[in-house]
């Protein structure tokens, strides 16, 4: 019953070195503010907090142990001892998890990109459903978010959407949303009542600040809709679409959703910056021969991570194998979605811990 859940020697020595690192960085940070240091601190802080709790609980336990033979307090101490041991066990698990190397940028805010995959206009419709799902989910979570770019084809189908989520660690939270999402349902236009399968691809990127990654404006070309003629007071144009091309990489972002060119340009630039930063990061990673993270950029049907099955009112994640029967609530952005997201997180965690 009084089994000791102490962390391994290797772990405790790792923890003490983190403690001294934290002190050093804090001092440096107080003298000299920098985003880099702030990020490092934010990364270590949760571990230090948990470790302090862990050490306090350990002290508590050894005090309680010495009381178990006390004629008056013995029973009381035994009861508390079992609570504290439980707590220590929990803390130990949490610390073990925190010590697992996190994906880079775990603490960043993020951008979610959504594009239709296989399935024509049904896929475009599903992509806009996912857009609405994430927008409402963030609103329900009270996380600030804005839709940077959404572009549509001539029949009104969504081609692409980008939501910026201004919540610290939202990258960590949403990173496993990346992949192919599959929908099974009867399209409104289907006369024979057959179920169609279509897909949408989701990519999740960490938000990068301008200090961390700047674009050389000379490498950009802006295309805007320009009426011929004298312009100015003579016409009152409402056309505001902007296309930004990054010439060296031929990366193109189009934004037509806002009412002024100025706004569309700012949003397109933000998306471009995030994408180029990710590209840059992946290139560096490849160079250092590290494994490439497997964000899905393709819209291949076989890479599906999750299925939204309308006839069965069911949503299944294929990594955690968790199914929920609250499809409409999830699609409306209800907080039920977090059950799925978190199930994936623990499934992947367990896979890591083996």
């Amino acid at each position, binding site marked *: 019953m009084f089994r000791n859940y102490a962390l391994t020697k290797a772990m405790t020595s790792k923890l003490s070195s983190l403690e001294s690192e934290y002190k050093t960085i804090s001092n440096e940070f107080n003298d000299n503010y920098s985003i880099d240091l702030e990020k490092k601190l934010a990364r270590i802080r949760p571990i230090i907090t948990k470790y302090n709790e862990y050490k306090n609980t350990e002290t508590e336990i050894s005090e309680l142990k010495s009381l178990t033979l006390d004629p008056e307090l013995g029973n009381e101490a035994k009861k508390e001892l079992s609570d504290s041991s439980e707590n220590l066990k929990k803390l130990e698990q949490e610390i073990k998890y925190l010590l697992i190397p996190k994906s880079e940028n775990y603490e960043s805010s993020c951008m979610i990109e959504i594009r239709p995959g296989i399935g024509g206009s049904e896929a475009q419709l599903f992509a806009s459903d996912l857009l609405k799902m994430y927008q409402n989910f963030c609103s329900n979570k009270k996380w600030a978010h804005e839709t940077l770019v959404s572009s549509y084809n001539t029949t009104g189908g969504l081609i692409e959407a980008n939501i910026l989520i201004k919540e610290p660690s939202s990258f960590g939270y949403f990173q496993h949303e990346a992949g192919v999402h599959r929908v099974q349902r009867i399209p409104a236009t289907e006369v024979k009542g057959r179920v169609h399968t279509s897909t949408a691809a989701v990519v999740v990127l960490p938000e990068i600040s301008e200090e961390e990654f700047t674009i050389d404006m000379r490498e950009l070309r802006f295309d805007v809709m320009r009426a011929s003629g004298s312009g*100015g*007071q003579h016409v*009152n144009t*409402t056309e*505001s*679409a902007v296309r930004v091309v990054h010439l060296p990489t031929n990366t193109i972002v189009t934004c037509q959703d806002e*009412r002024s060119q*100025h706004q569309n340009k700012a949003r397109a630039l933000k998306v471009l910056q995030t994408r180029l930063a990710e590209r840059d990061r992946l290139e560096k990673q490849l160079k250092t021969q590290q494994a490439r993270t497997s964000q899905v950029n393709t819209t291949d049907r076989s890479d599906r991570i999750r299925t939204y099955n309308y006839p069965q009112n069911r949503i299944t994640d294929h990594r955690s194998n968790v199914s929920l029967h609250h499809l409409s609530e999830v699609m409306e952005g209800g907080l039920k979605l977090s059950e799925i997201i978190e199930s994936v997180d623990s499934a992947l965690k367990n896979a890591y811990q083996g």
Partner: protein
Amino acid sequence: MSRLAKLTAALGAQQAQAELRWMLRELKAEAVDDAVKLRSQGYPLQYILGTQPFGGLDIICKPGALIPRWETEEWCLKLSKSLNPLENNKVLDMCTGTGCVLFLLLHELHNMNKSNRASIKTNSIFTGIGIDNSDAALDVSRQNLNQLPALEPLRSRIELLNHDIHKPLPASALSSTVVTANPPYIYSLNEADSSVSEHEPRNALLHQPRIYEDLVHRTLETSATKAVFEVGYLNQIDTCVDIFHKHKWRAWGEKDSNDNWRTVWAEK
């Protein structure tokens, strides 16, 4: 006909979809039908939705005042970047209409000032004065001044006056350091889109004899060292540049990003 079909007939598919989306986003559901009807008859979108984004501001638009143009926004943002937010600027905007030029310049100065750490020490003051000879236009600029949340910190430093720019300036304008104007410059309303000539105020569009000459003379009455006027034609640039040169100012014309001659810039 569906709403989209009506709009498509008037605007083309792409623009019809964009505008219907904005209407659905910004108007009450029951107002959309009327909005579509008006819009497909050529009524300006900004009077229907009630605003036009201009830099970081959502300028209130009403039929009494000209709708802000992207060309104006473009030079206005360029001018704001050329000003020193740590100096005591006083902006005089002649022919202010909605007030968009004046408000955006001060808004940008305010933002630059806030994000500049040195300003804590200098605590610079910038103020603005907008003049127009149309009460209808002044109504709209006053609404903007009183209602735009972004202007809240600037409200007490901005003055709006009814004044004819063909006459000498009111005393409070003489200490201005920067002068701007987007005066009416169209020679004949036939040259404008019908949506413009039918729905925007004539006195905001139609050129008046000697208007550019008088704008330059008004500028010279002040202590300003910098001025930008919007133009519709190259000869209007020449008119201004000639007078500025006579008074030993540097002056030149600039094109907008659509390759049309758009502004005259002058510096003392």
